[in-house]
């Protein structure tokens, strides 16, 4: 919302400075976004007399001018403007001046061999208009040597404030003035301009509100008045200047008046040229497919949700949003119809959005225009038309009835202290409310507060608290210590999943992986490839087609990220993400996944080639190690964890596994990414990955105390024995280990595979799996015979479970 200081002063009687006003605006909640002071930008420019303008000796299009700037010493300026001529008055910028329109600083120079100091300027060069046809041509009686800002009355700073959606009243300058007056920056001037203007006779154009009973709210009131015999043309300079200052283009007096009232009072109006209106006006819902050529020169196809104003020829205006081109006012208009109507905020918002039209009128109607100002608005506009264009008004015809909302709030003054902690004296609170237009009735500690019609946002006590403190100065809130609730002192603040999320990130980063944060949405094809792509997880309005579906897995994002790094020349990418994945649209379908990928030579012990050993790309066991390191860091016991060969479809079927506790609790998978998956993601491998769904991990066993179980240490040395078994290729090492463990549950404390061998000495289709078994005696040292016996049981059990034979 833009306005100028002089415009504000039309409503606010004040002597405060611009700086004070700017500070106060922000303080009361009208945040100042910018101040433009033309007096500063245009300060160097002075009015000047062109004593002579002669043909440049070396250039046809240039003239050499002698310019008098008031100090008696003529200055020589080379000027290319076609209208430069002897005796004219114009605007001169001395050397060293910044020229806004040209974005340069003018100096002293030589133009085609003739010295030139400074320049004569066009309005365009001063940043005042689009006119760059020639230099400014001032009237012959213009004084010389005056600051141009003073001569042209441009010394009027423009202030731009951000108005929050709850303050439609501040979309009119008078509303802003009211706030400033309440804040003590002056007094609100009496409003004389809206007094009724007597009219002669009735408005000859009828208005019909053609709505079904349920639709009456779409246009509660429509006021129309005719002014006959006007002379339309450019509006006076003061009006043009104000409109230009706030970024509007002056059109003609009648149109400028409607724009003026829109900004002056937050009251949008419309004017029709009577001679272009056929018959009476009807206000109704548009018919589907009906079209209108609007004032912006575009044709809009309408739907029944939009309200229109129609005459005998068709749609003349889109209600509350934009007028039609047909019936608009131009220089030929002699009889003007002025409309001041009320529209339904919600309907205007919807229509405006579906049509894609943003106008000052829509902006105000959808936030809420003061219904009580419907008729004062038309009086103000009529008065201005008479002042600027002459003519004779008829009476005002009102279709419907202007509503006068009356809201009263029971307000205990103590509410201010309760919600803000600020002590504001009762008299100050009362004065503030009254200055803002609220009527305060009653004398006790709780009063009845009547809300003014221009404040649709104020609904309850809290709103009044805000009104009082924003004027009192919300900075009066004093910092009050807010100690920890003693009952919560020892309670942990993180839940198990929150703790595990944190730990998972640190654990994976500690394995040399870098944490990525990738988009929660991915492309549809990618989502489908990873088991997602459900319709309920597809966005209706994605920002891009590759960001259309909620991700079922973190892998697509990470694999593509790894590939992007490779494309930049960093092929050994080790990345992880711990974040949400989506199996459905319900809250419980959202889980946290911890996923790590390793590309090319990004191995846990270090990426790239290393002088100490031959380079091998990351393999399935690196991914497995990531998964197990994560589980270890999270304190998840892996004893009962099953490693079932083969992961989900996006993994290499022979080099991947699913991790599960029993048949139902699948916690994740690891392995090499399937070549077809890589191809689908436009990535090059090898890439290995581990995914763990943190929500599926079993919680730690609930323990009654923090005391750890007693530590029992054996006095006897453990014994290690090695066995090499020959088994079929298909036999899983895990089964050999399990059988060895099961053979002697109490004595065997550890079994590891230390070698897997194929080749000489081992038949085709078989492999040798060598294991080391640790026996921990509990009661006494084992004799050779006892160890021998245990070994026998191990061999027997492994043979039984896996068909293994002891390698000779």
């Amino acid at each position: 919302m833009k306005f100028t200081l002089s415009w504000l002063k039309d409503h606010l009687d004040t002597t405060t400075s611009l700086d004070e006003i700017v500070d106060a605006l922000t303080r009361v909640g009208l945040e100042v976004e910018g101040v433009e002071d033309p007096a500063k930008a245009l300060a160097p420019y002075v009015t000047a007399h062109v004593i002579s303008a002669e043909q440049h000796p070396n250039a046809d299009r240039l003239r050499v001018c002698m310019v008098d700037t008031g100090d008696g010493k003529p200055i020589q300026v080379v000027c290319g403007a076609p209208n430069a001529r002897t005796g004219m008055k114009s605007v001169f910028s001395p050397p060293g001046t910044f020229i806004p329109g040209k974005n340069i600083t003018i100096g002293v120079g030589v133009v085609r061999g003739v010295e030139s100091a400074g320049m004569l300027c066009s309005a365009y060069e001063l940043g005042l208009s689009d006119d760059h046809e020639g230099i400014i041509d001032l009237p012959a009686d213009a004084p010389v040597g005056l600051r141009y800002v003073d001569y042209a009355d441009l010394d009027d700073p423009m202030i731009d404030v951000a108005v929050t959606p709850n303050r439609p009243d501040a979309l009119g300058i008078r509303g802003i003035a009211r706030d400033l007056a309440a804040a003590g920056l002056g007094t609100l001037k009496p409003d004389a301009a809206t007094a009724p203007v007597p009219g002669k006779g009735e408005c000859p154009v009828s208005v019909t509100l053609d709505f079904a009973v349920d639709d009456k709210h779409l246009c509660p009131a429509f006021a129309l008045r005719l002014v006959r015999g006007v002379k339309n043309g450019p509006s006076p300079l003061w009006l043009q200047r104000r409109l230009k200052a706030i970024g509007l283009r002056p059109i003609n007096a009648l149109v400028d008046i409607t724009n003026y009232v829109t900004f002056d009072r937050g009251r949008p109006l419309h004017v029709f040229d009577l001679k272009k209106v056929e018959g009476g006006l009807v206000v109704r819902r548009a018919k589907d497919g009906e079209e209108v050529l609007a004032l912006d020169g575009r044709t809009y196809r309408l739907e029944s949700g939009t309200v229109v104003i129609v005459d005998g020829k068709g749609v003349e205006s889109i209600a509350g949003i934009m007028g039609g081109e047909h019936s608009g006012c131009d220089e030929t208009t002699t009889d003007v119809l002025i409309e001041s109507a009320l529209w339904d905020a919600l309907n205007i918002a919807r229509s405006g959005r579906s049509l894609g039209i943003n106008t000052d009128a829509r902006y105000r109607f959808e936030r809420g225009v003061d219904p009580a100002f419907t008729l004062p608005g038309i009086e103000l506009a009529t008065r201005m038309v008479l002042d600027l264009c002459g003519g004779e008004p008829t009476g005002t015809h009102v279709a419907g009835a202007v509503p006068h909302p009356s809201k009263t709030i029971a307000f205990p003054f103590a509410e201010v202290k309760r919600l803000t902690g600020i002590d504001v004296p009762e008299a100050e609170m009362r004065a503030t409310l009254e200055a803002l237009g609220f009527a305060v009735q009653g004398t006790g500690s709780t009063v009845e507060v009547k809300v003014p019609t221009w404040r649709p946002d104020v609904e309850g006590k809290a709103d009044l608290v805000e009104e009082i403190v924003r004027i009192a100065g919300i900075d009066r809130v004093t910092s009050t210590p807010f100690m920890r609730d003693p009952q919560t002192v020892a309670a942990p603040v993180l839940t198990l999943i929150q703790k595990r999320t944190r730990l998972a990130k640190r654990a994976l980063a500690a394995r040399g992986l870098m944490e990525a944060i990738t988009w929660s949405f991915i492309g549809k094809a990618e989502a489908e490839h990873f088991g997602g792509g459900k319709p309920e997880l597809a966005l209706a309005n994605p920002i891009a087609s590759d960001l259309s579906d909620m991700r079922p897995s973190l892998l697509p994002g990470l694999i593509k990220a790894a590939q992007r790094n490779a494309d930049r020349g960093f092929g050994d990418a080790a990345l992880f993400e711990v974040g949400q994945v989506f199996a459905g649209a319900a809250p419980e379908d959202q889980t946290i996944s911890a996923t790590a990928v390793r590309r090319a030579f990004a191995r846990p012990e270090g990426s790239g080639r290393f002088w100490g050993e031959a380079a091998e790309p990351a393999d399935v066991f690196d991914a497995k190690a990531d998964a197990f390191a994560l589980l270890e860091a999270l304190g998840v016991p892996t004893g009962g964890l099953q490693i079932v060969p083969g992961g989900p479809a996006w993994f290499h079927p022979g080099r991947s596994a699913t991790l599960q506790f029993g048949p139902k609790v699948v916690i994740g998978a690891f392995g090499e990414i399937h070549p077809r998956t890589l191809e689908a993601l436009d990535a090059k491998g090898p890439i290995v990955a581990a995914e763990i769904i943190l929500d599926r991990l079993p919680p730690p066993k609930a323990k009654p105390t923090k005391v750890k179980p007693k530590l029992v240490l054996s006095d006897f040395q453990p014994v290690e024995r090695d066995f090499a078994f020959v088994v079929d290729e298909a036999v899983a090492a895990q089964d050999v280990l399990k059988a060895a463990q099961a053979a002697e549950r109490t004595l065997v404390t550890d079994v590891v595979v230390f070698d897997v061998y194929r080749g000489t000495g081992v038949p085709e289709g078989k492999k040798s799996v060598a294991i080391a078994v640790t026996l921990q005696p509990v009661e006494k040292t084992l004799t050779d015979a006892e160890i021998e016996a245990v070994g026998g049981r191990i061999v027997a059990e492994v043979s039984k479970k896996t068909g293994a034979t002891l390698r000779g």
Partner: protein
Amino acid sequence: MAKAAPTFRARPRTLLHGFMMSDIAALEAELLSAVAAASDEAALENLRIAALGKQGSVSALLKTLGSMTPEERKEKGPLINGLRDRVTTALAEKRSGLKDAALDARLAAERVDVTLPVRPSDNARGRIHPISQVIDELTTIFADMGFAVAEGPDVETDFYNFTALNFPVGHPAREMHDTFFFNPDETGERKLLRTHTSPVQIRTMTAQKPPIRVIIPGRTYRCDSDQTHTPMFHQVEGLVIDKGSHLGHLKWILEEFCKAFFEVADVKMRFRPSFFPFTEPSVEVDIQCSRKGGEIRFGEGEDWLEILGCGMVHPNVIRNCGLDPDEYQGFAWGMGIDRIAMLKYGMPDLRPFFEADMRWMAHYGFRPLDLPTLAGGLSA
């Protein structure tokens, strides 16, 4: 020298009781010089056997002591025992010297180039993303003030994201949110991606009785993308509901937070009235800063920077959660995690946060064990 050994072995046989003191001295001189000349442990062992072995020259002398008269023994005993002791010592010292020399020679041969690099290489260092780090910092600061961490789903309903938060249907404030919608389901309900973390306020208030103190960090979404906006970003929200907390308490919390987060001794704060549908009164907060050469510093200077929005929870919101706004009151605040991370750590652009460029992560990321603690200071 090894070939000289048999000579010593032969000599003792010729010695009898009548040997002279000069013979002992000569033997000692001979033995000690042989020990000194021994070049390895094997030669030394041969010498030991030749002198002190069963048939050794010194042993032979020692044996003669048994057949001596007491007088003779008193005279010769110390001489012979002294000879044995000195030869034994010489042998031990020589042996130890030879061992040291051998070890030194081995170590000299085992030299490696210690300047060869170890693993991991520079580009394989794990890093924590600044967003995660900042969330951990926030959690640490607010945990100290007794705040728990609450979370909620990203896929939300219109009710939690807007209606319960007092956004009237069709209100411009709703439109300002640039919401991502899902296709309507079979019941016609249209879910959305939460546009802010505030729906978790509703979820918390409806699930838990006051007093409530939570912070709500998380991902949020708006269909907006340019230099300074990404369709996905992060917010953190705070919520307090009890029977007496007011704007003064909120100001204290925010001041404590800013001091702790930006790690400055003091920070000035400015409240400005503003508007959010779910708070009333609503406030925007600026903090004091200085801007020098493009760098923003907090806790100093004359400038102001808008950092967050807050206010007293709107009575309608409290009511929508089944609580009586005349009995319960409280405040909420919200800010962009990405933004405060950028401010604190001087990251100029938002977009790289979500591009997973390893060069960016290596530069702006945090070491895995830099877990923020109050004891150790938030940032390492």
